[in-house]
């Protein structure tokens, strides 16, 4: 995308000269650095419930956030009105964080570097609504057709198209066009008047609408959701206490997101409040574990051509053969820790201050055969699907909640077990990883990560792994 073709230039008549002037205004009180984050966001959503398309919504929001950094301090202001007066006012408000004469006299903006990870010609948001509504109808029909015990189905489709323009006082101007779509299905099953059980599934990415027609169809997600609900009808109580845990491939990678990822975000480490603070070079996992955060995988939900500070995303190695290698840096933490940004500065919207965040976080494949991993366990639990997770950065304790799991008895999967939370300690948990499968897969593309009130889309992934010891929060 060229500057001259972007919505900010064509519809709001913003010129490079204007951007340079706004940045100068932001630095007029002596700030060290300033950036402008312009965002134009078009969203749409459709949902079906009881086989009735009950809602469809679309809308547009836009605005600009102005950030000024002075030493360790950040001033931030935003406006949802892109008139010159309002942008100037935001710049003046943000500028107040500094107090002194301007240090920068002239800013020349040049185009920044970026990847081309989602060369989507027509974003889903720009397609006919009649095409998108078919997706939820197909999902509803497929989930109901899966099994007569399915009695409620809800499917929701949502997409957005975000156009961002980031101009920084370092002289870099970056534009990106970020499409995102996802389809999710929830099904309820009931047997002989007994209590209902729920299953869900979903996925998507930075893709064209054809992804849902050719690659991952509504029927695929619908059958997954219905299957999980039906499986859970036979679930028995989960065990309580320490157990061998085998995680299946894909979404169970949420373990890494909670146990490792958050604790390695540089803001917590710069401040010394993370359980991983000062541990670079130390062994924090078994030698079988190599964990990366990679924002450069084509079409993935967590991928970005540039982060929300205008830096190209990277593949960052967090743990290499069990040894802690690095943190996820944004500009502020990077500059205070004397290290470059790792392309990890993200924000929810123009109304939010960027901070270090994950993109797609996963463990590299090992050598074990996944079936052999299950066969190796005399007694334990095999978890294939999860709800959300959470971490206490400081103690390092984390949880993640299994929504589909099975008992392993004598190396065989026996009964499904009811929902249970798994709990562990970040710098310790992965030391007990004794087998890593050769079946790395990434999740389907529905993850949302929350931090300090800001939500951003992320991805996770993992091969089948065996953890010799982890606490399972069941009742049996």
């Amino acid at each position, binding site marked *: 995308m060229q500057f001259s073709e972007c919505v900010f230039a064509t519809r709001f008549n913003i010129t490079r000269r204007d951007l340079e002037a706004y940045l100068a205004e932001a630095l007029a009180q002596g700030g060290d650095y300033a950036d402008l984050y312009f965002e134009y966001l078009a969203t749409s959503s*459709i949902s079906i*419930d009881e086989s*009735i*398309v*009950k*809602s*469809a*919504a*679309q*809308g*547009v*929001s*836009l*605005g600009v956030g102005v950030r000024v950094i002075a030493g360790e*301090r*950040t*001033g*931030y*202001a*935003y*406006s*949802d009105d892109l008139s010159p007066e309002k942008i100037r006012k*935001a710049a003046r408000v943000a500028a107040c*964080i500094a107090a002194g004469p301007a240090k920068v006299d002239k800013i020349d903006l040049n185009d920044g570097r970026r990847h081309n990870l989602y060369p989507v010609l027509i974003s889903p948001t720009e397609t006919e*609504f*009649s095409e998108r509504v078919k997706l939820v109808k197909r999902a509803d029909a497929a989930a109901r057709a899966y099994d007569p015990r399915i*009695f*409620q189905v*809800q499917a929701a489709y949502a997409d957005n198209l975000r156009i961002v323009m980031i101009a920084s006082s370092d002289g870099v101007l970056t534009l990106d066009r970020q499409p995102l779509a996802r389809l999710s299905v929830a099904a*309820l099953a*009931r047997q002989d008047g007994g*209590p*209902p059980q*729920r299953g869900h599934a979903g996925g998507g990415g930075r893709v064209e609408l054809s992804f849902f027609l050719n690659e991952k169809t509504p029927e695929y997600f619908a059958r997954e959701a219905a299957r999980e609900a039906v499986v859970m009808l036979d679930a028995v109580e*989960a065990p*309580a*206490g*320490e157990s061998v845990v085998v995680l299946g491939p894909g979404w169970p990678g949420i373990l890494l997101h909670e146990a490792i990822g958050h604790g390695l975000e540089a803001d917590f480490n710069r*401040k010394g*409040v993370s*359980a991983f603070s000062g541990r670079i070079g130390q062994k924090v996992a078994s030698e079988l574990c190599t964990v990366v955060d990679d924002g450069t995988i084509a079409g993935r939900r967590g991928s970005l051509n540039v982060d929300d500070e205008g830096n190209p995303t990277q593949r960052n190695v967090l743990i290499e053969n069990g040894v802690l290698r690095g943190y996820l840096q944004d500009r502020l933490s990077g500059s205070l820790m004397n290290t470059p940004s790792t392309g990890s500065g993200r924000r929810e919207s123009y*109304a939010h*201050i960027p901070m270090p965040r994950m993109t797609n976080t996963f463990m590299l494949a090992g050598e074990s055969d996944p079936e052999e991993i299950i066969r190796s366990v005399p007694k334990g639990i095999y978890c294939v699907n999860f709800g959300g*997770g*959470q971490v*206490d*950065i*400081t*103690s390092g304790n984390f*949880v993640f*909640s299994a929504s589909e799991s099975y008992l392993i008895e004598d190396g065989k999967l026996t009964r499904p077990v009811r*929902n*249970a*939370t798994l*709990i562990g300690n970040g710098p310790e948990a992965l030391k007990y990883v004794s087998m890593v499968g050769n079946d790395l897969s990434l999740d389907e593309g529905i993850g949302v990560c929350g931090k300090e009130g800001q939500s951003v889309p992320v991805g996770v992934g993992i091969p089948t792994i065996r953890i010799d010891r982890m*606490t*399972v*929060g*069941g*009742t049996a």
Partner: protein
Amino acid sequence: MNGNLPELAQDIVRRAVAAGATGAECTIAEGDEFSANVRMRQLESLKEAGSRGAGLRILIGTKTGASYTSDLSREGIELLVKSALELADITSEDPHAGLPDPEELGSISGDLGIYSPEVERLETSVRISAAERCEAAALDADARIFNSEGASFDSHSGRRVFANSLGFAGEYRSSSCSLAVAPVAKDGDSMERDFWYAMARDFAGLEPAEQVGRVAAERALRRLNPVKVDTQRVPVVFDPRTARTLLDNIFEAVHGMSVFRHESFLAEKLGEKVASDDVTVIDDGTIPALFGTSPFDDEGVPSRRTVVIEKGVLKSYLLNTYAARKLGMKTTGNAARGLTGNAGIGHGNLFLEAGELPPQQLLSGIRNGFYVTELMGFGVNIVTGDYSRGAAGLWIRDGELAFAVSEVTIAGNLREMLLGIEAVASDLEFRGAVAAPTLKIGEMTVGGK
């Protein structure tokens, strides 16, 4: 049009009707936010801004469409109306869709004490100073408080306008101030953090900053050197902050949309005993100055007091118009939505009525038990009631808080947990729209070693 948002909302409704809608409802919200963060006695960030947006939901017969925009120019409004109308083409006929019955519409009169114009006018230095004093009190409380994630002062002033094609037009303003701090304590290799916070509709109503800081420090300190206990079944006492989350669970279970879909363990249980005699749960959107108070809900129906559970018996679900019609009931004035879309369901001030015992007395008589001060994760399944969450807190031995516990889970089923509430303390206070006093549950599984 700058000052006259109610007129704009009514105009948008008129335009929608003129363009073919048989029903329309428009929400306009605007707000100003401010936040100051202080960390290790230094100002870390200041943020200040205002924003506004409009949302429209229309009906054509029983088909619906919705749209929103942050662009309130003439061009933006035209697109808003056109966008909502075009979506009605792709949705289905839904016999239960519609606006509230006209006689349900209305607003509570009188001053609800939810807006103070002073909040916007507070000096920046006053806001920063509150955060500074709060963090300083935490840092100075004990030598083991060696670090901090910082303290923040946040304020918000907003205005919400709603109009529909049945002639309802209303608006209200609200404001809030809050103060929060997260100190980090260290002792040897043990590092623990906790947080504490205060909230009020105006600055004068805020608890003293020093008090908030001291409580946060105490909470962090008592978590030091935790033990992972053995797996066992014991009585569990929830402190007010964690007891509150049980009210969040109850809210989800009496949420009308979940109820009509049978997606709740409390579906089809009206009139039945679902909790112990000590449990009375009220949703009241009319209590002056509280955080869940408003004159009308997001469909233009007056806020009210609804008894949800009375002495253990399930008395009412929380409903909007749609869920009420699905269930053959009347709305309880609990419609909630952002700017647009079909209304969802929210709560007013949702609380569990205080009992008579002082909180310490809930511990007496417990030889071996768990006092929970923090819960983690999302391990609550409202469909089945299955409950399994990460927890931290203090171990109860012979009626006294003995040592810190962490990296454990607590598990059970909400059905049994609510029936198993053996005691409710007197320490109910509102630090948000949901509140509960200290509670004791007879027995749960603690998962540890």
